[in-house]
């Protein structure tokens, strides 16, 4: 790569609420710059994980370097850093933003600003990024671009009157966006002659090259042979290759210097060594200080993952190991359950992260999993002064040893149209929310601020929010801290036997309600046996709810016609196969799905 004039580089990202068209706009930008032909464009180039495309959200940050021939006759290098679009990945978002100099704010012309839009914009502004808005989906019949422009100016306080009016889907107004990038996003600063100082904003594991580290060079330069040091983790390595991001491929180059965005490889075997947010420097000529903002990412949500077939335990371990190569925020450690056998207690950034990992294990590694109810980390203060961080309800000490317990609390912002304020406030009250404030953003929309226990929102809060606001509410949260709370362990007994994998921690006031619904749910999940099966919910040995699965009384196959035995046999085999997928607890067979049923206690 020829020496690049720093003034011709633009490092930026796109921020938007989910569904507002971020990835589509990214596609159009890549397409318009001529790097790819329309035919080569798979829909949404940047979201290249199958799962991401299906869910329509970005999980891992993707980055692409493109060349743009601007109207001023100059050639510009654009580094478009795509950011994850979900609150679970907030920290990753913040690091991606830190790698940029500016941001494009995409707002849906019909939907206007959402809670997540605000959260992301504030995050961008916090990182001193220059933000310019783009109004998307202007060709929708329900588009109200003028209203949205005013909203942006009123709520966010950035100039929006000359915002490009576009339809990313139909390729309208994309040129304007490209010119705006040149004009409105500042060129990077930094001196290539200073000691190396580069920000890691992502990494992927490649089985040949080792970890491929995505970084933004703030100061100095990096090339093949540079001995680098990760300042937070302390890991050192010798650079094997540097390069930049083509669409969907890595293109090696001679050197990366201040202001540039690219990657390097250094035969690093573990992504844990290249933590997102860490600063890379030159081992021989280190910079004085690391870049600000590094933080160790902690898991917020835990659950047990067990192979449906106990013999697949080693396969599950291997799969988790491989996934962790690419995902430093995934934690796991072995655990044993009486009901489920050998498995792992896994930690995730949030429920979406959990679901994604679960789906990847099932899809990419072909594993059949039993997952226990997700929970948060509780702090148990024992009478002897000791404090334990509880991730598995089964490990809760005897109540007599517990002085008090604490649970994590989040600060939540919910944006909602005024007509749904009532139902949403009610929902937050039901979920033990503490009301903080209501801010009216415009006549018809308000921003509700609440503090909510994390364990109340990890289950079905988001779904409940959507259903109670007919889809109009949006939601964002961040960790606030721990608070003392009256928590109890709810145990489930099936045929009088406690099933450890079904226990969960719940606030004392909602124990009865949860227990009752759990029993109802399990009653539907557990197939009939030859005998009656009581299902009970208990707190501290006291039964608080009960349901019964009645005994199976009839299971006969009808006609077996014209001697077609094969068909009958298939039916019996299916029945037997179904049994294999069940877990035997005592003399009761429990289907896998039952262990996740606590997740489906949604209101009716």
């Amino acid at each position, binding site marked *: 790569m020829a020496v690049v004039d720093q003034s011709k580089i633009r490092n930026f990202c796109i921020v938007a609420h989910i569904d507002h068209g971020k990835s589509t706009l990214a596609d159009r930008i890549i397409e318009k710059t001529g790097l790819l032909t329309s035919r080569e464009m798979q829909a949404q180039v940047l979201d290249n994980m199958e799962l991401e495309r299906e869910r329509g959200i970005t999980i891992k940050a993707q980055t692409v370097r493109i060349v743009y021939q601007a109207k001023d006759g100059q050639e510009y290098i654009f580094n478009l850093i795509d950011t994850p679009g979900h609150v679970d990945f907030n920290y990753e978002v913040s690091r991606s933003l830190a790698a940029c100099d500016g941001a494009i704010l995409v707002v849906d012309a019909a939907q206007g600003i959402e809670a997540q839009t605000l959260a992301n914009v504030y995050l961008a502004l916090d990182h001193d990024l220059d933000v310019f808005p783009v109004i998307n989906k202007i060709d929708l019949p329900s588009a109200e671009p003028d209203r949205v422009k005013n909203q942006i100016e009123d709520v966010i306080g950035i100039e929006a009157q000359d915002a490009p009016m576009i339809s990313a889907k139909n390729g309208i107004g994309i040129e304007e966006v490209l010119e705006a990038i040149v004009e409105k996003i500042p060129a990077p600063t930094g001196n290539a002659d200073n000691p190396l100082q580069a920000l890691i904003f992502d990494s992927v594991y490649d089985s040949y090259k080792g970890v491929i580290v995505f970084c933004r060079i703030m100061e100095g330069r990096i090339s093949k042979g540079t001995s680098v040091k990760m300042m937070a983790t302390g890991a050192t390595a010798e650079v094997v290759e540097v390069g930049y991001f083509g669409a969907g491929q890595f293109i090696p180059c001679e050197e990366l210097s201040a202001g540039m965005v690219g990657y390097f490889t250094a035969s690093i075997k573990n992504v844990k060594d290249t933590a997102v947010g860490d600063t890379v420097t030159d081992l021989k000529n280190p910079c004085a200080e690391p870049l600000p903002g590094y933080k160790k990412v902690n898991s917020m949500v835990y659950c047990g993952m067990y192979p449906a077939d106990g013999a697949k335990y080693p396969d599950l371990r291997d799969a988790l190991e491989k996934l962790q190569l690419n995902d430093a925020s995934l934690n796991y450690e072995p655990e044993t359950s009486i009901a489920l056998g050998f498995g792992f207690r896994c930690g995730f950034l949030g429920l979406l992260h959990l679901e994604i990992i679960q789906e990847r294990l099932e899809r990419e590694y072909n594993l059949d999993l039993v997952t226990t109810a997700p929970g948060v980390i509780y702090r148990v203060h024992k009478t002897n002064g000791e404090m334990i961080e509880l991730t598995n309800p089964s490990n809760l000490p005897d109540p007599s040893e517990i002085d008090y317990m604490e649970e994590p609390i989040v600060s939540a912002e919910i944006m909602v149209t005024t007509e749904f304020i009532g139902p949403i406030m009610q929902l937050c009250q039901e979920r033990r929310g503490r009301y903080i404030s209501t801010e009216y953003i415009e006549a018809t929309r308000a921003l509700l601020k609440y503090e909510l226990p994390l364990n109340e929102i990890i289950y079905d809060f988001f779904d409940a929010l959507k259903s109670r606001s007919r889809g109009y509410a949006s939601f964002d949260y961040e960790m606030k801290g721990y608070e003392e709370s009256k928590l109890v362990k709810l145990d489930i007994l099936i045929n009088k036997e406690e099933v450890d994998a079904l226990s969960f921690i719940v606030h004392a006031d909602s124990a009865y309600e949860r227990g009752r619904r759990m029993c109802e749910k399990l009653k539907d999940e557990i197939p009939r046996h030859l005998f009656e099966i009581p299902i009970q919910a208990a707190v501290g040995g006291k039964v608080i709810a009960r349901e019964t699965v009645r005994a199976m009384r009839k299971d006969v196959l*009808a006609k077996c016609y*014209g001697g077609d*035995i094969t068909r009958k*046999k298939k039916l019996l085999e299916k029945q037997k196969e179904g049994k294999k997928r069940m877990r035997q607890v005592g003399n009761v067979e429990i289907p896998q799905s039952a262990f996740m049923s606590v997740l489906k206690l949604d209101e009716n």
Partner: protein
Amino acid sequence: MRELSLYVHIPFCVQKCRYCDFLSYQASVQEKEEYVKLLMQEIVLQAPLYRQHQVISVFFGGGTPSVLDGEIIEKILCKLKETFVFESNPEITIEVNPGTITEEKLKIFFAAGVNRLSIGLQSANDEELRCLGRIHDYKTFLETYEWARKAGFQNINIDLMSAIPGQSEQSYRETLMKVLALQPEHISAYSLILEEGTWFYDHQKELVFPTEEEDRAFYELTGQMLSDKGYHRYEISNYAKEGYECLHNKVYWKRGDYLGLGLGAASMVEEVRWNNKRTMEEYKEAVQNNKILQRTDLGENIEYLTQEEQMEEFMFLGLRLTEGVRKSDFKQKFGIPMETVYGEVLEKMQQEGLLVVEESVYLTAYGMDVSNYVMAQFLLN
């Protein structure tokens, strides 16, 4: 000589019943003629491969075999007798549906050698018959039944169905009473099962099916009322007066050799299972092109049963009969004691009150109620 049963499939119906997922459809006169021609060809092709077999039973099933003219059934039977070796007094059954039959036709069947009739009544309640999509009412059935007796049939089965949408215990009791008053030799009583691909399956949300308790009550009522009138249950869903058990039906459960003729028909001969092609085009092609060298040459889904599979079948098919299976038969057939293979299962099933395990192994009354559960236990991996 080995014994052989023949099943002849007639895949035609006047209209498809709402619960039916068997291979059957409406067809024109021409299509029927063409099919019978193929069937005759198939008989000629197959018969030479069964020189060492003696036919003990023939069963015309469907569809509705009685949609064919009497002369055609006669012609098929003649062809079978001409080409296969028959024992002196074979059981020859034809299924008939009221509404497709005349007195004349029944006389022709009888004269041709058919000695057993299976009449699809299903219910004596006209509303229930309509709900099932049957083309006849109870009166039509009565007429058919009387004609059959007049024609000389002394072995008649009546098919009944319980758990029909809208059926009450009272209406089912009435059906049973009406049928018992006629004193048929054999009664098949099935409860309706929703099968995928049926009208009922697609419309199940609009229908009110009897509850499990009601279904259960029907089932108990059947056993009780039938045994009171001297019918004994010899198979899960079949009841007969002394000496009138259906020989052909038992061949399936006892794993005797049977050859299926016609579209999609299933066969099992000397531990090989297969079925004829299931689409008319494929069946036609197979019959017309084939110089048949092996028994399975016209068929598909050919399975050479392993010793394990034979054991599984021996158990789960045999257990459909109330007499169950004999340990000595198992030992003789497979060379190892039943306990060696199934000791654990037998013990468990016995403990759960589902099986009686003596020299004979058979289902208890409760075991019959949950027979699928019991049978599934006998599958080896």
